[in-house]
């Protein structure tokens, strides 16, 4: 027993001596972001301008929303490959509703108001996510396979709905009372784009859920060790279903914001976004094994990925090189994660 005491006593000293390297490792996404902003500011006079930051944050808003959902899934020890497709499907579905829904039996065309479009689209996202969750939790389909399936199905449905074409007119008609969709993409409140505000609200809500609610605790516990969580009374499967549903909801919001920004809804929107999203979460320090990760880290990860790729565009680097850089950053981030978590025992 005295052995244990010795070992415990040896710890605080170690904690007190925070070295520079440890500090850099803990805050790597933050320092990375500062480095990116400083580098590009020096390379291009157009980078560090208010208008450019607004443009970039609009891009980050999309990835940030997806990344928050992905963070929840990854914390749970899963993965959601369907977010890009759900984003595309949501945009198309919203566009479809904006064009008016013809009810043949009644012989009328219904034009739902924008709030109804938003509610219905988000419900669709939740439904796709719930399907993923039920497959993973109750039918024991590996998350990778289940969400890979929905990646294809959602994309296919989006293509079927538009026949491969794009809905270009999303502005609605004052006569029909369904105007205002662009508001999501273009308007600003106190100078901040609505998309960024939506991201901020989503981040705060997610953060509160994770740190202050029983559900957040269940999520961390079942991601860290599902068997132990289950034996402690955590409804592990219900948590899984909710987590994938939330990821679907956030992807639907991202789809709405993106199609509002573009004022068009194409079935190819969000193609390969799931990979960028996973990259953002991992750069933000979350462990793909589950149980470890924070909202702050994930937001920083989304900003790092977004600011890096936009910066490369601004200084005129070829898009092929952008892909190489993004890949290198992801590998570096995962490597640093392994260093940080490697010493803390196997999970």
């Amino acid at each position, binding site marked *: *027993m005295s052995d*244990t005491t010795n*070992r*415990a006593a040896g710890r605080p000293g170690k904690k007190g001596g925070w070295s520079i390297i440890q500090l850099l490792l803990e805050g790597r996404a933050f320092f990375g972001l500062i480095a990116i902003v400083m580098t590009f500011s020096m390379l291009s006079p157009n980078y560090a301008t208010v208008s450019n930051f607004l443009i970039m944050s609009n891009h980050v808003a999309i990835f940030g929303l997806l990344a928050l959902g992905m963070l929840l899934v990854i914390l749970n020890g899963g993965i959601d490959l369907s977010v890009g497709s759900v984003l595309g499907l949501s945009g198309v579905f919203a566009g479809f509703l904006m064009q008016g829904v013809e009810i043949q039996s009644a012989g009328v065309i219904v034009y739902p108001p924008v709030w109804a479009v938003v509610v219905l689209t988000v419900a669709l996202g939740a439904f796709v996510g719930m399907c993923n969750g039920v497959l993973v939790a109750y039918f024991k389909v590996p998350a990778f396979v289940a969400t890979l399936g929905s990646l294809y199905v959602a994309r296919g449905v989006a293509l079927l709905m538009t026949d491969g074409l794009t809905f270009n007119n999303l502005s609605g008609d004052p006569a029909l009372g369904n105007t205002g969709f662009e508001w999501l993409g273009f308007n600003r409140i106190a100078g901040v784009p609505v998309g960024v505000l939506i991201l901020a609200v989503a981040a705060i809500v997610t953060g509160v859920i994770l740190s*202050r*609610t029983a559900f957040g605790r269940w999520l961390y516990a079942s991601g*860290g*060790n599902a068997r132990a969580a289950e*034996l402690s009374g955590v409804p592990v499967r219900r948590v899984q279903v909710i987590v994938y549903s939330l990821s679907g909801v956030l992807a639907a919001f991202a789809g709405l914001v993106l199609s509002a920004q573009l004022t068009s809804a194409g079935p190819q929107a969000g193609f390969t976004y799931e990979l960028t999203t996973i990259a953002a979460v991992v750069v933000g320090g979350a462990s793909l094994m589950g*149980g470890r990760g924070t909202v702050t880290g994930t937001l920083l990860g989304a900003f790092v990925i977004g600011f890096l790729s936009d910066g490369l565009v601004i200084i005129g680097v070829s898009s092929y090189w952008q892909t190489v850089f993004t890949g290198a950053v992801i590998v570096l981030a995962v490597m640093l994660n392994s260093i940080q978590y490697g010493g803390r025992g196997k999970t």
Partner: protein
Amino acid sequence: MRVPETDEAPQVAPDTTEVVLAARNVSKSFGAVHALKGVNFDVHRGQVTTLFGENGAGKSTLMKILSGVHLPTSGELILDGEAVEIASTVEARDLGIAIIHQELSLAPNMTVRDNIFLGCEIMGSTGVNYAEEGRQARELMRELEEDIDPLTRVEDLRLGQQQIVEIARALSANSRILIMDEPTSALSASEVEVLFKVIRDLKARGVSIVYISHHLEEALTITDHAVVLRDGVMTAYAPRSEIDLEWIVRNMVGENFDIGSPPSRHEMGTTALELRGLTVPATSFTGNAVDGLDLSVKSGEVVCIYGLMGAGRTEMMECVAGRLPATAGRVLLHGQDISSFTIAQRIEAGLVLVPEDRQRDGLVQTMTVGRNLSLASISDFTRGLFTNRRDENRIIEDSIREVTVKTDGPDATIGSLSGGNQQKVVIGKMLATTPSVVVLDEPSRGIDVGAKAEVFRILAEHAKNGMAVVFSTSEVGECLSIAHRIIVMRRGRIAAEFTQDTTKEAIMAASGESLVA
């Protein structure tokens, strides 16, 4: 040298036989934990040396040192009279030392032939020489007198046959020393007979065998020497002719082994937990792991469940906790039928399980000590939508004090605790839900004697306050510590029931430990 192929003790006096492998004054420490303290151990050529000891006595550490998994902290190994350093399992194999683990290390999807030569394939001019491998595999099977086609997939073989394949693999590498860790624990009686015949054949061929088993009398029929370990120290060493079952138990358990006495002089309440005809199907074999079991436990009572591996203790407990479904029977908690309750509902109703494997089922390694402790009682510190930090900290601090976890604070990582303290965290987590019945599966597994005594003290205290405690153990000494009643399980049923005034020998006999399976 030939040894008579009978069950009798060897006629050759062991002292005159050659020592092929010897451990001299071997110690091994893992951090601050001393697993082995100055152990001396001889392996005699062509004979069976059995290592006896309870869980945590250091048997497996010693085996891992002999087979190259660990290097000793101090001391040396002497092979054929020369000091050797065995730094890896590959080196051990090259020196002719092979180990057969309790969990077989075969690839079930591959054939017997491919398994035997896995990692040391015979290469021909055009890749692997399957014809030669097949021929040698058939030859090995013939020597072992087992009629197994080398092209059979391992998963299609019975467990006993799979064990033979492991032995064949060891022999194919020209092993002179074969270490067998609990080889009979999963075998049927007839398979054990076959295995023992193989062991006698191996002895006759000059192969030395190190044998580990919890089936004491079974081991006595095959062994030539006995070595007993207790708490990392070799407590006794003798040739077969000089020992008996009682000698082993005495040396294994120790006379002064005291981990508490039953909480005496308190009134037992009404029936708290009742099992009626509980039947749980087995996962690894056809049939029932728990077979129509009846049990009732009163409030304030401490019941110990003793049994061998595979007796159905874990399945029974996991079914009671709601992890495994029962095919028949009912679970009653204070007279209320809770058979259809989920795990969470059972915890709410006051029934909790402390699982056997704390790493796999007990702890969330990514969370701090504090959050592990509060995990099962989240609803107690949730106000409306949100958790209340002050209430949570109060629960955590109470728990740390109550189960005396030695930690530098609730924010320490769970991995920074010793095994005993981790176990206390798992127990503390479940006790924080203020249960009326607590079921513990091997609560003393892999923790040191001091921590054991504390765990049992905590349980005894709660029993005094009216909690019903059911715990299982495979260490017979613990049955006689704090339990009012000892239930011996065997093949899913209750084989016997004892009160405190029984003996270790009687309990072991009832479990089947002292009989050839």
